[in-house]
Structure formats: C-alpha cells, structure tokens
C-alpha cells in the first residue's frame, strides 16, 4: 500500500506500484487538471510538484511518491490566485490552454526557487514545457510579471 498526500489530502494506492503518477491523478483520482502530452518527460504538460519540486508525473512511478506531498494545479492555490495564475490571466497567456497547467506549475516552482529570475533563466527553466500554440512570449512576460508582483 502506497500512501501519499495530494493537495493536502491523504491518498492510498494498492494497485501497480509502477503506475505513473499522471494516470493515478487523472484516472484514479479525477484530478484532470494535470495533462498528458508525451508520456516521456519531453513536453512538461504533466508537471506537478512533489515535495515542492516540479516533476513530470508521466514518468514518476507511484512507488517513487510514497510518503510524499504531491501538489497539482488544483491545489496550487485555493482560489486560483497564485501570483503565476494571476499574471497568466493579466497577460492573457493561453490560447488552447491545454499545456498551461503544466506551464504554470513549472513557473511556480521556478519562482519558488528563484524569485527574481533573469530572462535567460526563465527561458532555460521553461524549455522543457512545450506550447504548440506558441504562447512563449507571453509565458516569459507573465513570469517576469509574477516575479515583480502582480
């Protein structure tokens, strides 16, 4: 039996310990804000926080999150008012929106580690998150905005 917390709630999993966290969250727990994009940690759509760090849930096995604290987009802020979320809305970042929860989770972790990133650091830290609609200019600007206070 694997025990973990997700967004502060206790969870237990007694199925396949190698199941990727992504599918536990989406299909077993109904937390569909975390998205599938590639299954190989190539696109970042599935990014969640484990112990405060941004991880790709598509390649993170359930056994690797035993006793860990997992936070998904649904738990990032109770009313969606995290500075990154606010900046995203202020600059109207999303187009289709599908990758944006992963982008936001990555950006939130980035700012938590480094509250005043340089432009180069933003590009470097966000390079693992693909947006096929091409919202990159706005993502970069929104992270700058969030880092300076919205």
């Amino acid at each position, binding site marked *: 039996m694997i025990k973990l917390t997700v967004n502060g709630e206790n969870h237990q999993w007694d*199925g*396949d310990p*190698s*199941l*990727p966290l*992504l*599918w*536990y969250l*989406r*299909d*077993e727990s*109904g*937390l*569909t*804000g*975390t*998205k*599938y*994009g*590639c*299954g*190989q940690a*190539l*696109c970042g*759509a599935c990014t969640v926080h484990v112990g405060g760090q941004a991880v790709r849930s598509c390649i993170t096995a359930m056994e690797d999150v035993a006793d860990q604290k997992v936070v*998904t*987009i*649904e738990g990032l802020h109770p009313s*969606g008012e995290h500075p990154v*979320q606010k900046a*995203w*809305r202020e600059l*109207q970042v*999303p*187009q*289709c*929106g*599908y*990758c*944006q*929860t992963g982008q*936001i989770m990555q950006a939130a972790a980035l700012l938590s580690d480094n509250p005043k990133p340089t432009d180069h650091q*933003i*590009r*470097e830290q*966000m*390079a*693992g*998150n*693909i*947006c*096929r*609609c*091409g*919202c*990159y*200019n*706005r*993502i*970069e600007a929104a992270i700058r905005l969030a880092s300076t206070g919205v």
Partner: protein
Amino acid sequence: MLHAFPHAASSPAIENVSRRHILKGAAAAGSLVLAAPLAHAATAPTYKTGAGDMPHGVVIDPNLFVSIAPDGTVTIVAHRSEMGTGVRTSLPMALADELDADWARVKVVQAEGNEPKYGNQDTDGSRSTRHYLVPMRQMGAAARTMLEQAAAQSWNVKPEEVKASNHEIVHAASGRRIGYGALAAAAAKLPVPKIETLRLKDESEFRYIGKGVPIVDLHDITTGKARYGADVRLTDMKYAVLVRPPVVGGKLVSFDSKDALAVPGVEQVVEAQGWPWASKFQPLGGVAVIARNTGAAIKGRDALKVVWDDGANAKYDSDAYRAELEDSVRKPAPVVRDEGDADAALKAADKVITGEYYLPHLAHVSMEPPAATANVTDTAAEIWAPVQSPGGTRDDVAKTLGLPPEAVKINVTLLGGGFGRKSKCDYAIEAALLSRKLKAPVRVQWTREDDIHHDFYHTVSAERIEAGIEKSGKVTAWRHRSAAPTFMSTFEPGAKTESKLELAMGFVDVPFAIPNIRCENPDAAAHTRIGWFRAVSNIPHAFAVQSMVAEIAHALGRDPKDMLLEMIGPPRIVDIAKSVKDYWNNGEPLDAYPIDAGRLRRVAEHVADKAEWGRKLPARHGLGIAVHRSFVSYIATVVEVAVDEKGGISVPRVDTAIDCGTYINPERIRSQMEGAAIMGLSLVKSGEITFKNGRVQQSNFDDYPVARIDESPSVTNVHIMPGENRPPSGVGEPGVPPFAPALCNAIFAATGKRIRRLPIGNQLA
C-alpha cells in the same frame, strides 16, 4: 433546455461535467423565447459571404443562440469549436455588442454537434468570423429590438423613444430604466423582427467588437478546471488504448494478448474494427487494450504481440518519393493556369532564374493528442470529444453505428489544439465502436506516438519556379510547377492531382503583374493519409513563391522588398476569374473578397516600415520579408535572424502585419500571429515526418521536435491594419505561410546561404 434537442442516449452519471453549464431552459417562465426563428437569411447587410454554401448553411435564430434569465443573465451559444483561436469568446462578443449586454453578465455555453439546428459548425478554413460576424450581430440586434419594444409598451411610449444601454432599456425623456431580466418575459411574447428591419450598430457604437475582452475560459484554464477531450469521466468508464496498423492500408493478421492480460489493471483485449484505405475518417482498426486506467492500458499495449499485413503502401519511402516528386516538376505537366506564353517568354528571356523547393510531410502534434469518450447503447450514442467538426462527427458516428443522426449526441469539449487534425473524427468513431462492443462507457486515449504514427499528414511537396527576366530587369515569365499528394486522396481512393482548393492556395492565384504566367500540376499519388494542416497548401506554395522573389532580387542586385512590390505591381483588383477557370476563392464571392493587390502591397509596405526595413544589423544578422494572401486575408512578415558560427539560428525579432478586414478581438489576433511565428519556426527548423517501409520514422517530441521557449523570437510585433468596414477574413491560419520564406530570406541575407529544402536541419552547419 436551451439545447432543446431530444437527448436520446441514456446518459450514465457524469462525474465531473460542470453543472453550471447546464442551463435552466429557455422555455422556463421569464426567459426570452423568440416566437419564430428568423430562418435562413441573407447573412449581411452590405456584403455576401460563402456561409450559405457551406453544408447546412447559416441558421439565424435568436431563440437558439441567446436567452435571458429573470436575473438578467444572458446566455449565448457558441456553436464553433474552441481550439485556441478565441472563437468561443469572439462570436458571442459580437452578439452581446448588438444586444448592448454587460459582458460581466454574459455566459457562454457550447452547442452540441447538430448542424440542422445550428447551421454549419466546421471550425476550420479560418472562416468562423467571416461567416458569423453579421449573423451573430443580427441575432443580438433582434433580441435588443424586442427588449426595446417591450419596454416601450410597458411605458406606453414610442419604441423610437427608448434605447438599450448596458443591460437596460432607458427612456431618456422620463429618466425611466428597466433591466433586461425584468423585460425578458414580455419581450418573448413579441413577434420576431424581420432581418431587413433591424438596425445594426454603426462602427462608432461598438463596445466589444474591435476592442476585445479576455477569453471566457481564462480562469478555468489557469486553474485546471477547463475540460478537454480526456477530462470527462463517466461512471464505470473503461480506459482504452489501441495499437493500429503501422502502414496505412495494412490489416491485422493475428494477435497474442497473454502478456498484455497479465499486466495489473488490464481487463480485456479486443479487436478494433478498421476500414480499408481510403475511407474518409474511418478508423484504421487494430487491437484495443481495455484497462482500469490509461497507464495500465498503455503498459498492456506494450506487452501485446501483433502480426500485420502491411498492404500496398509498405514500400512508401520518403527519400524515393522526394526524388519522384522532384523529377515530376522538371517535366511539363497538366496546365492549371495559362496566361500569355510563358514557355516562349522563358526562351526569349535575357536571364532565367530557377528555384526548386521541397517541403516534407508534417504532423499536427497538438498538445492534446486525440481522445474521445463514448457511451453507446443499442439505440443511441453520446460522445464527448474535442472535434473541429461537431456536425460531421455526428454524421460519421451515426453512419458507422447504423443509427439515425438524431440518436447521436456530440458534446464538444475544449480542444487542446486542433490545427486541422481534429477535423477528422476517427478517434471519436473508435470510442463509439468500443463502447458498443463492451456495452460500457469507454474513453479512448491516443498516446503521442499514436498521434505521430497515425496522423492525417500535411502533404509533401516539390515546387519548381522558373522566372524569365528581360534585359531591362523586368520579370516577363513565370512558370511554376507544384507536385504534392492531395488531401482528396483521403476521400477518393486514387486521387492524385491537387484539388481546386489546394491549387488556389497561393499557386494559381499568384497575384503578380507578370504578362506570361503558367502553372502546372504533375500527378502525385498518396501513400498515406493526407489531411489539412493549419494553412494547408499555402505553406509550400508561399515558401516557393516568396523565396523565388528574393532569389530574383538577389540575381538582379535589387532590394528584396522593392522587388516584391514591383512584382505585385500597382494597386488593382486582380482579375483572377479571367485567369483561372473555376477559381476557388476560399469559398467566398470574389466581389466581396477580391484579390486586391493594393491591400497586399499595403501590408508589405506597412510591415517594412514598422520593422524598419533596411536598418543596420550586427554581423551574421539578416532581415527577410514575405507577403501572402490566404483565407482571404493579407499578411506580411519581416523576420530578423541571427545565425551563429555553427549554423545555429535565433530570431531576435518578428514583425507581422495583418489585414483581416473588420475584426472582433484584436488581442486574439495578436496571439494567433505570435503563435503562427512559433509554428512557422518549428516547420523551418525541424518539422519533418519521413516514411520508411511505409512506416513513420518519428515517434515523439525527441525525434519530431517543435519550437521551445528558448528558441522563440525575443520580440514578436503584430500590426493590425484598420478594418475600414471591410468584410472580415481569416486569422487562425494565414499567419503561418509567410513566416518560413521570410525567415529563409533572412538567413540568406545573413549568410548568403539559400535554404530551398525544409526543414533546415543541419544545412547551415
């Protein structure tokens, strides 16, 4: 119900479909119900579009599209699919503007797929705004007129004395005012005004059109609440992942499911029905692994052993096919435009410049791979899916299941990108078939590998242009051959010439003032599923044409922008109907949407001005320009590139000017142009799908890379030309075609190296 369509399917409990989307019915007391539909009517007061020629045409019926609750909440139906363009916001904005509604009190609900009811719902061809701006305004104006009449009656004053103002009707003379909610019941009893009697706003009165509001899904997207194709969960739903024939036209011979069934969570392995190639959007078939969650289904699929019969396309090889295409454009071929005598003019020319260009297949790779959920019984079907073609999906699912369309309900979720892929509903049909087979709700999830291996690919193209120049430096001859498998091959087995739609995408309608023009289209047989990809054949055609202009400029020692303007010639309406028999003008009438060389010049001149064309640049930087008319819009792009010593490229700045006529939401036009630059960058740098032994050789974002944030332009400036009351035209797609030639022209300016084959790959190394 606002969506009064009888819901035949027996719905299982929906665990997570937001209840706020399920409205109190329009028929409820106090709601505004217009007594009769305005019916299929002329779409515009001042111009005609091709909307009426689309399947199921236009329905202008305020009863369907708008309702007002007693609390004043205005509910507007979005009948087009949202895939990132903002259409789910912009069309309701147009209605709300004429209604003079307070946007804060407007709710948007998504229509199910039902074209007899809503009119055409195909969200492709960049046509939603141009076909629906006026109908949405008319429906808003009709509702506003009825509210005004109801207020006037209740105050016993003339209707001309009252005026709608921000969700209220106001009688200025007496200072009386009354809210829309309080008037809705009385307004509902009034006759529906005739379209020709409606007063539409003057441009100066617009409160939303041309100004813009944030998209309605913005908060849900940023909080993870937005629902995409794979986000609907039904009670007792099964999770399915399929393995499909690796070669188009291939068939399943046998499979061994023993190891798959041993995977924890896997419940069942079943054969999935397939159709022979080509059969429109019908599924490829194969084997489905059914599990308690998607992760288990994927793991189960990895353990399957399957034997295929590859069929006739097993020899499809991209290297060999490229040679075939390139050979075909070096020989005379069937003529699709002929003006003057290009062959003779080329012989007589002082100088002939030849350019050969090659562009490979592309996969769409929207961030959301195809996914669909279905619940099918013996007598009905309900689907939840991210589809660009809700009406077509309904028809195709109904036909496949042998049900009447009335028994099939298509719920349209948000689309996590579409780009043309999600016009093809094979994944929804797969889910429907499996649900019927398993007698349970089923969600089908495509993996990224499935998406890349089984796309309806962008065509592959060889283009050859020969330009004849006389001594004075004037271009006197233009002979362009374009060879590319047609998307019609997906509908008609054996189709092998570009359709009139593809020919008209910047090939036969080249707008240059050249006296001798000849366009030829050699045969090109398809060996895989060809589909339309954002901007479609405009991509290869614009690449060839706009690269060639810069090549001519170089050969003559001219400035590329000046050469481009000279070749476009003076401002005029290009008489394309005289030049090209049966010309397809993106489905629009030529009188409302002519080929206007003046507008083409204007965007080119404007972008050159804004981009400071000719500005001094650091070493190894270059500027390139390209202009293209597509989806009846005019777009010009200037790219600044920097090429490092190792051949790596970066893009410090992009400027794009767009003339799309009257527009609704400028902020979303900017975002579409920003995104088009990123998609253009992807296809220039790395976009290439290749086949070997009939199989796609790429699988995921490692071997089919798309542009990432660290490659994106540092600055993207978008310059929107004033609408000037012109008919609206496309925005979603037309930003893509000029980017690639502008970038490659910039690379030439920076390095002297001409890129004639995409993607660049290591050509600059």
